[in-house]
């Protein structure tokens, strides 16, 4: 036993030594070269842990209600409400539930929450820890819109999609930007595929780190994409001003098609928390 401990100690020392060398190398690597922008977002500027049961905190969240124009521009099928059946905080989570029911001329109801006019920020780390619904036609999303949308309209305001998922693809999410010249079908988008997990069986953290001339896309601790002005086929509209957040669960529409006979209702999108960090 003793020899073993001694051996272990020796090993630990060795490992520590190797580690320090490694750290030193890392530190020396941290000097950003001229093409790379690094900002650290360490200061919480907004967070909702969804710890108080009932309706979401009205100081943080407002709602889109109804069907918008042409299913919010995407042929979506749901009618958005703020009823507790569709949106509620309980069990330490925000729950957005899509229900199949006849309501105000629509076949489904769900909810869409916004921080418009309540919380808007330029740059930062925006992240949400979520477990998503499943089944064809489910379209959960966590995204940002330029706060000047009412003045200059979409897509000139810019749109940052932190996470979108089509319910028929339970291992795939995507992140995108939309702007003038690169919106809708021409958005700049990249998919991330889970190889040993799913969006509907576990909570995952979906986030972006957004700074001057870059947006980095994360799933959990994996950086899977960076979008810079060089990647977009139009003006970079992401250095102009603050954005607000949207979390919604759409049913049907252009992203994943409409539900089919195998789609199970109701379906719930679970949000454990939303946190936003700024640089200082």
């Amino acid at each position, binding site marked *: 036993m003793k020899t073993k401990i001694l051996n272990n100690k020796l090993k630990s020392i060795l490992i520590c030594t190797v580690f320090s060398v490694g750290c030193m190398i890392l530190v020396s690597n941290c000097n950003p070269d001229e093409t790379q922008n690094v900002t650290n977002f360490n200061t919480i500027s907004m967070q909702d842990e969804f710890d108080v049961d009932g309706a979401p905190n009205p100081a943080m969240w407002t709602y889109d209600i109804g069907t918008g124009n042409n299913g919010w521009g995407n042929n979506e099928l749901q009618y958005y409400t703020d009823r507790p059946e569709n949106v509620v905080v309980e069990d330490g989570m925000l729950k957005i539930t899509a229900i199949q029911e006849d309501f105000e001329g629509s076949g489904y109801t769900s909810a869409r929450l916004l921080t418009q006019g309540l919380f808007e920020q330029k740059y930062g780390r925006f992240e949400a820890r979520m477990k998503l619904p499943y089944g064809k036609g489910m379209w959960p999303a966590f995204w940002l819109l330029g706060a000047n949308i009412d003045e200059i309209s979409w897509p000139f305001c810019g749109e940052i999609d932190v996470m979108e998922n089509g319910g028929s693809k*339970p*291992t795939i999410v995507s992140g995108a930007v939309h702007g003038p010249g690169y919106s809708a079908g021409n958005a700049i988008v990249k998919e991330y595929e889970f190889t*040993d997990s799913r969006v509907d069986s576990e909570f995952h953290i979906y986030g972006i780190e957004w700074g001057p001339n870059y947006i980095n896309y994360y799933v959990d601790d994996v950086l899977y994409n960076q979008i810079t002005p060089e990647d977009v086929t139009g003006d970079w509209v992401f250095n102009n001003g603050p954005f607000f957040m949207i979390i919604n669960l759409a049913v049907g529409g252009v992203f994943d098609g409409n539900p089919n006979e195998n789609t199970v209702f109701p379906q719930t999108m679970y949000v454990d928390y939303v946190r936003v960090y700024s640089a200082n």
Partner: protein
Amino acid sequence: MKNKKLKFSIILPLIGLISIVAISCERGFSDDVDLATFPTNGDIYTDDPVGLTDDFFESFDPATGANTNGFGTDNNEVYEGSSSIRIDVPSPNDPDGGYIGGIFRDRGEGRDLTSYDALTFWAKASTSAIIEVGFGSDFIEDKYAVGINDLELSTAWEKYIIPIPDPSKLVQERGLFLFSAGTESTNGASYSFWIDELRFETLGTLGQPRPRILGGQDQTAQANIDTSVPLIGLSYTANLPNGQDVTVSATPSYFDFETSNPFVASVDELGVVTVDGPGEGGNNTALITASLGGIEAQGSLTVEAVDIEVISIFSDVFANVPVDNYNGFYAEFQTTLGGAVNENGNNVITYTDLNFVAIEFYGRDGSGVQPVDATDMTHLHIEIRVNEGIDPADFLRFELFNDFTLPAQLSGSYTIAANELLSNQWVEFDIPLSSFTGLTSRNALGALFTVSDATLSNVSLDNIYFYAEN
């Protein structure tokens, strides 16, 4: 397939095991105890068989028509590496057997598969074909058998995933793979298929586990005390990483069964429900449910303990008398199609294009079927599900015929109005036989007609029996 007979003999040893464990729980294990563990290797066939019996492939009994010739390996057609398994499926009239199938068995005492969530393999066939695959069959107990009987192979290599319903059960599994293939899907034409990279895997990408009993339906059954009925239609559905659902059959040992009322009914480890007594306090029903790996199974059986004499025409609970048919088609006048079908493990009768239809049990065309003497019976029990919307003018009329087709024939009828039926929901009826106006004698009932005059066109029937309370 074969070897699916329930092994009642294992119940007693199991009970013994449970009591030993219960006693042991008082103290916990000493540090000196080495719990028996088994190898955790998940590989079954990569380029060679891995840890299988010397036979490699153990065929189903040739007496059942299993052909043992077509099994081998192939060094030309591989998905990965240098070799694959090649299976040549014989034509039905092959003198050496008309189908091929069997199992791969662990050569040791079994493997610990608890860390895996699926059996996976790559396969292709010389033509599109449907085969049966599974695992958990060891030709000894088949305790944790899982199967898919309609796996569709294409002519390109594809990966197939067979989910494990509850891996925690597989602490010592010998039945590593099962396949069975005939030519039903190829119109009798023989073909070959290849399997490669066959192994248990931890995918982490399976979701939405959905165990089911009784095909996921909530069923009811009246049953006499001391009678038993096995729960059927046991399955497990999981969602694959590509978003598609896959459903496997699973043996009862994967499930935990529960009764809500032990005074009425009990259910054993093999899912056999036994009616134990009339109940207490006037409650003569018990709800039988199940769970798998802590997930509640869809489907349930509500058992009502009764004391009745029964002559059953069509039921999964009572022994049925022989009948001529469930749709004695009368050409020219009758439009009704359909008959008895298995609906997710529950046998029902479903009619489409209904105008009228007969269940015949009088000995049509000299079949030898005997008419039913229901003189001592008091009621007709029948369950009806209308598989469409119901309009106020819709109806169903049941007509019973005595001495059917004979000169002495007489009949009586009973009509059920639209407001007594529900759309897409089962409704039970207990109709006094005295309500069949005109049926003055019932000593030789030979036909039960269902008539809608096309007001209702899609209707299912179940649990049709005559009874009298003792």
